[in-house]
């Protein structure tokens, strides 16, 4: 037990943490998905302004996301679609970060040995 603890303590103080790609991806996915979901609904609740042609314009800038996320609109349904896209993009982003990070740690560790 003692040795184990010493070992653990050493690991705790010296070893770099490895990122769990799935967890990190999921978390980032959730965060980005939620940001889009909340931002979209926030704009809907806050209401838009009337355009020159008398039409109601809500969140014209956010709407541009639709260029990347096909089907996305500033509407409640759009917010759900946005969440799904955001989640997917965030997950990929997070997984990518973890993958690169773990690769570097791995390379560093093998070089140090």
């Amino acid at each position, binding site marked *: 037990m003692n040795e184990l603890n010493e070992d653990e303590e050493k690991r*705790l103080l010296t070893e770099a*943490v490895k990122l769990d790609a799935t967890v990190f991806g999921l978390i980032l996915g959730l965060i980005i998905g939620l940001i889009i979901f909340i931002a979209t609904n926030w704009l809907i609740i806050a209401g838009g302004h009337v355009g020159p042609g008398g039409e109601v314009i809500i969140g014209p800038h956010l709407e541009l996301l639709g260029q990347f996320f096909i089907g996305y609109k500033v509407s409640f349904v759009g917010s759900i679609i946005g969440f799904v896209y955001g989640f997917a993009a965030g997950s990929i982003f997070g997984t990518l970060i*973890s993958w690169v990070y773990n690769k570097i740690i791995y390379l560093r560790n093998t070089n140090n040995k």
Partner: protein
Amino acid sequence: MLTRKEDKKVIIIGGGPAGLTAAYELNKSGIRSEVFEKDDIVGGISRTVNYKGYRFDIGGHRFFTKVKVVQDMWDEVLRKDFLLRDRLSRIYYRKKFFNYPFEVKNAVFGLGIFNSLLIVLSYLRAQVIPIRPENTFEQWIINRFGYRLYKIFFKTYTEKVWGIPCSEISSEWAAQRIKGLSLFSALKNALLKKPPADKNVIKTLINSFHYPKLGPGMMWEKVREIVEEGLCRVHMNSGIEKIYWHNDAVLAVETCKDRTTTRISGTDFISSMPIRELIAKLEPLPPSEILKAGDKLNYRDFITVSLIIDKKTIFEDNWIYIHDPNVKVGRIQNFKNWSPYMVPDPEKTSLGMEYFCFENDEFWSMSNENLVDLAKNELEKLGFAKKSEIIDGTVVRMPKAYPVYDEEYKKALEQIKEFLGKISNLQLVGRNGMHKYNNQDHSMLTSMLAVKNILGGHFDLWKVNADQDYHEEIKENEQLDKQLSDLSSTQPLIPSAFAMKKSSGSLIEKAIIRVFSRLDKFAFAVAVGTASFLFLFLATIFLEFKGDQNIVQSMLLLNNYFVGYDISIKGAFIGGGYCFLWGFISGWLFAYIRNLSLGFVIYKEKKKLENQSLKDLLDYI
């Protein structure tokens, strides 16, 4: 080898806690035994000496254990004579009392403004410029408390006890003594705080202890009575002079009483006598390198001068630590504060003045009269009593009170262990019996396991530590499960806030490592940078092919920050490059801040843990 219990006869060397525990357990198991004790009193270092009705210990003996079987035996033997006593033990310095366990605040305030300032300055200095490398005990303490506090509260006392300068004691020793808990456990405790009920348990264990009504000797006198009513004979004044062995077994021992030598044979042998002596008493003598190894085991010796004073109260503490460098006394016990039954007359007080020395040094060789006189003078000098109030005094010398852990002992002990390991029916138990600087409970546990071995168990007594490590190991070794059904209660009685089950512990431990380990700043920076690069790069390429003007205009706003960026292949690289740079910087900063904040949490926990154990460091010195 004989297998039937009735045919066994166990010879036990030493009538101290280890020897008598072995006899007690054997008696319970229906096995005959004979204890040989060289003195005329049982209890070994845990004896209680009776001088004209005033009782005193060789150093006060707290009954405190984490091992349930040991606690059970104490309870079983002492029953209502086992008192629960409050603990008070302060440091006495310049005629002032300082709280103990150690409290920096109290220490600082007690020493006056000027000294306090110096203490704070030297503490700060140690924190800012710690001594590196930290090799000695002196450096180790200075780095944690500063030079001033070290000098006042550690140097004098430690040197009195061990007789060597703190600058010659290895820092490892302190670190070992301090490491009651790992940082890991501290983090676990911090994360999984238990309800306050447990805190009370901890508090109680720190602030009080058990003590037999008439001192520790009472425990061992009672055990002697119990075993003698059963299958054991206890021979007093019967030192073992020779241990006859052949091939891989001890055959008999030889004892000398009233100039008559007797040879006694047995089937199994348990020795709690000092290893150095055991080696020298083997017949035939072991190889010369083993004899030399035996000679390398050293001891620190101890003298108690017990003084009887015609005063009802002197101080409230059970004992006090004397940090004054002008007197030789290291600690003073006030036995009636341990138990009121220790003195025959409540109007009087008996104090045990404790001196640490080496057998046969100048101090050890002083006559009893001179020792009593010296103790009286020192008591007066310290301001506790006038010499005229001290009505009587006596001296008890305790050779080999402390096994010394010096540079040579480890290797020597290994050699001896290996040699004696071949003698299958001889088991070494106890404090000097194993050259382990431990308390009664350790001695008792080794004996309990030795008896289990005689009954067919396979316990490695050398693995029994004063802490709970081996006990947990014992529990977990499934093969030994059956033999251990009796011993399952060896589960340490530690405050449960610290007693995490190992199975769940390992999960928690993994999680802690995951959460608290460092995030590699460079790797994280590169990773965030790369991902950001790819993100903008792909988005730009996508737009380059799709070419929707609305979004292109908006995306182009980016070149306010990313000079040179546009929606083109080249622009994708330029924008990606900027994103990499910013991603790198933010990733690095994030990792840095995260590490810093977690590092702070770990540092705080480590400090708290260290201070916790530093608080009662003197108990272990």
